């Protein structure tokens, strides 16, 4: 199997990897800037190790023919479910959610890695359907495949992370072919679910939605993150305050500044120019990935690539949106930029999937 890898090496996608490394590098610089006065830990160094581990995992993922991955996905899926249950049983609680588990020398957030498995599982399921539109049974089966991990993550409870699984399903179903009646039906269902869901939300979740709509109602409590993040980004202006010069960051007004709110640091220190540059790098990755999907050898390749695209796109939308105050606050990281091993590793594995598909785009 590895012997074949050499054949594909010339098709290795340097472009996408260089884009990813550029973003990761900006991340390392800003993590350093955000934590320069925190002598307890060298966050930026740790992030570099994680990027190296991520690159290694990427190479592993792209080396195994994606058909083989899809073939063996039942085992991966089963392992994922076990991991998520294990988190519920033995996990460590961080700000009210049990989403971390200790794996020997470092801590993992399994839900991040499970996303990769769900992408493969859904791709495997959907690619075997040959009709123009999906049958109701197919939709329900696909929903079940995504639904089980979503349910387990919601039980942690980590609604934000659970949400990130949904785009994989939606994009997959959309590509698989939804009848107009289904789209309308889903729309109505979504509205009803939102209404019913409101009553089942925990108090802090409701509060987050309230404060998203009006952060000033609780400037020291739940609105604090949103207000401080907007101040950080807004005060960056067009050119930014310079690396290491962000007062919001340096003086500690920004909470979770090196993890979920790393993009506020980018906005404050690098300004509109820097923030748009980073967004552009992301857009190029997405663009390139969609191109790879279009030239993929088979439907499996398309679903895999587009699944990965959907995960990345949703993370970017939600995280950057929350930082600039146009999306509600949830605790999900920004791929490649945020400090955090699981997220970095999962992202590189998704990139590995995309490159995998590109390397094997020729039928012969």
């Amino acid at each position, binding site marked *: 199997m590895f012997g074949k890898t050499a054949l594909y090496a010339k098709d290795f996608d340097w472009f996408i990897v260089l884009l990813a490394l550029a973003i990761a590098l900006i991340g390392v610089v800003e993590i350093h800037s955000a934590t320069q006065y925190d002598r307890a830990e060298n966050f930026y160094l740790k992030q570099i190790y994680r990027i190296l581990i991520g690159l290694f995992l990427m190479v592993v993922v792209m080396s195994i023919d994606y058909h083989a991955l899809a073939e063996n996905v039942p085992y991966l899926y089963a392992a994922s479910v076990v991991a998520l249950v294990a988190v519920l049983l033995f996990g460590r609680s961080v700000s009210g959610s049990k989403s971390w588990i200790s794996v020997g020398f470092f801590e993992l957030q399994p839900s991040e890695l499970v996303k990769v498995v769900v992408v493969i599982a859904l791709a495997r399921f959907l*690619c075997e359907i040959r009709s123009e539109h999906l049958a109701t049974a197919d939709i329900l089966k696909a929903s079940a495949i995504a639904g089980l991990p979503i349910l387990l993550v919601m039980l942690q409870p980590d609604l934000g992370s659970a949400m990130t699984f949904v785009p994989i399903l939606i994009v997959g179903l959309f590509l698989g072919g939804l009848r107009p009646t289904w789209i309308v039906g889903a729309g109505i269902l979504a509205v009803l679910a939102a209404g019913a869901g409101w009553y089942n939300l925990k108090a802090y979740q409701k509060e987050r939605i309230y404060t998203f709509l009006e952060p000033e109602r609780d400037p020291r409590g739940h609105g604090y993150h949103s207000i401080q993040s907007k101040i950080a980004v807004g*005060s960056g*202006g067009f050119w930014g305050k310079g690396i290491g010069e962000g*007062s919001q960051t340096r003086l*500690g*007004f920004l909470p979770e500044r090196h993890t979920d709110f790393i993009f506020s640091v980018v906005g404050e220190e690098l300004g509109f120019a820097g923030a748009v540059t980073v*967004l552009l790098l992301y857009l190029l990755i997405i663009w390139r990935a969609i191109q790879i999907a279009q030239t993929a050898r088979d*439907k499996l390749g398309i679903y895999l690539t587009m699944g990965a695209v959907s995960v990345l*796109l949703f993370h970017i939308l939600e995280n950057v949106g929350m930082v600039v105050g146009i999306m509600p606050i949830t605790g999900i990281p920004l791929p490649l930029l945020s400090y955090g091993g699981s997220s970095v590793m999962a992202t590189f594995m998704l990139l590995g999937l995309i490159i995998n598909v590109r390397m094997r785009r020729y039928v012969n």
Partner: protein
Amino acid sequence: MALKDFYEDKRYVQSRIAIIRVAAILVFLFLLAGLWNLQVLQGGYYKELAEKNQIRSITLVAPRGKILDRNGQIIVDNRPSFTLSLMREHLASLESSTALLASGLNLEEDFLKSQVEKHRRQPSYLPIVIKEDLTPADLAFIESHRLEFPGLDVIRQPRRFYREGQLAAHLLGYLGEVSEKQLETEEFRYCKPGDFVGKAGVERVYNRTLTGVDGQKRVIVDSRGREVAVLDTVEPTPGNDLRLTIDLDIQRAAENGFGEKGGAAVSLDPRSGEILSLVSRPAFDPNSFSSRISKKEWVDLINDPRKPMQNRAIQSRFPPGSVFKIIMTIAGLQEGILKPGYADYCSGSTVLYGRSFACHKKGGHGTVDLHKAIVNSCNVFFYRLGQKMGIEKIAYWAHNMGLGQKTGVDLLGEDTGIMPSPEWKKRVLKADWYAGETISVAIGQGYVSLTLIQTARAFGGFGTGGIFKTPHVVSVEELKRWGLTPDFSTEKQFTLDEQTFQIVSRGLWGVVNEWGTGRRAAVPGFDVGGKTGTAQVVGREAQKAAVGDKKAEYEDNAWFVGYAPIHSAQIAAAVFVEHGGHGGESAAPIIHDMFQVYYDKNNKPGGPPMQISMK
């Protein structure tokens, strides 16, 4: 590989990718718009907010001006003090370690918790005060446990320091947090809530002069409120030092003279009205008000049956007893009822208006001339004088000497005292004057009730020949130095007949120097004149029957009022000792102590003043 290489139609799927591409572009445009709005359109607004976030103004409390005595000795000063406060954001971190902190600071853990609880509801810009006035041991403890308590902050502030403790407490006054009511007045408009202002005494009356202008330090702080850098500093301007007319040595002599007894004493220079000492006992320690005094401490002080907060020298009035006989004599001479050579006979009692009035000497004084009447304080003599003169004339002359009126001293809460007259009784008691009431007034009993300060001023005014100055604790020069206008509108003057002056002053001299009742006030070389007074607290029968604690409580109140030298007064004083027994025994020595200090200071270098021969 089953999944590979089977025929499949991927056209449908492929065609739908383009729609996802459009969605992706929309996502990026959406985010771009958000960034543009925040960073470019509203960038200025958020820059301002970021600045506000990190710049904090810290008030640098201006030290109050020192209070000095007339010779420049410091009575009230400031000393550095340290307050431990907690940053609000660190409440949680403290909660787990209250026990350690409490034991380190020698505080009850419950107290610490209640302190935190109390402050929890206050506005968030106020730090939580954990402990005020830290001891060096506290400071060492905090310094060595910095890491365990990250939110603790030690603030250095000047604190009022009354060097002499209780000495002159009522005169000096004390500080307290400005009240909400005061904040609404023009006088305290300059204050912020929480500021300390003068609440009583000199601290209150001269609050503006003593108050400086607070400075301000603008600092960059981090999210925990920790100071990272200083932007700029406006240094505070200290308040003006205020020099009083008080002589600390005379004050000390008077205070010491009281021992454990309650009472009051005022001494002043009658030529200018400058107060040299002003004592009220029991006193309080104004230092205990320099920090936020606890409610309990305050209630204890207010409810103390001995009333330590009352300034007995100006806020209390007492029946003057025999002291008033001097006023009677002056009035009688001025009215021409008394003449040199006038004499009366004392058999030990006299019957007036159908009632018997007794003299304090059972067997009677025999033939009593004017001088003997004063020196021996014969009641019968003055009963009959009172009857002859009538209340209107007594009141007229007493008023002329400022009795029953405020002296206008530059301290708050002065009592008027009572110098009764038919008009007064009608106005206040809505009743007619009985002639018999005049007889009690004649020996300083009945309705007549005087303050120490007005009595000292009356005697001093007499001693200067009839000029009654407005007493004050800050000299005219000092007032002008700080741009204040003296208010001496209560100054009075009348022409005292030479004969009146000679007879009365010699009588007063006799009381002190001729084995009279006031000989313990004598200062060798200094012609002290004065008059004792004794005012009963209860009737003689009850007094005799009393045992134990009651015995001391029923003891008479003692007065001594005098001035020196008698031919031209330089210092006049009134002393009142609660339950002091006879004025000659307890009050006269205090006059002696004050006058001795004054004499040693002012007359020694020039040699002894001329002795007047009275015989």
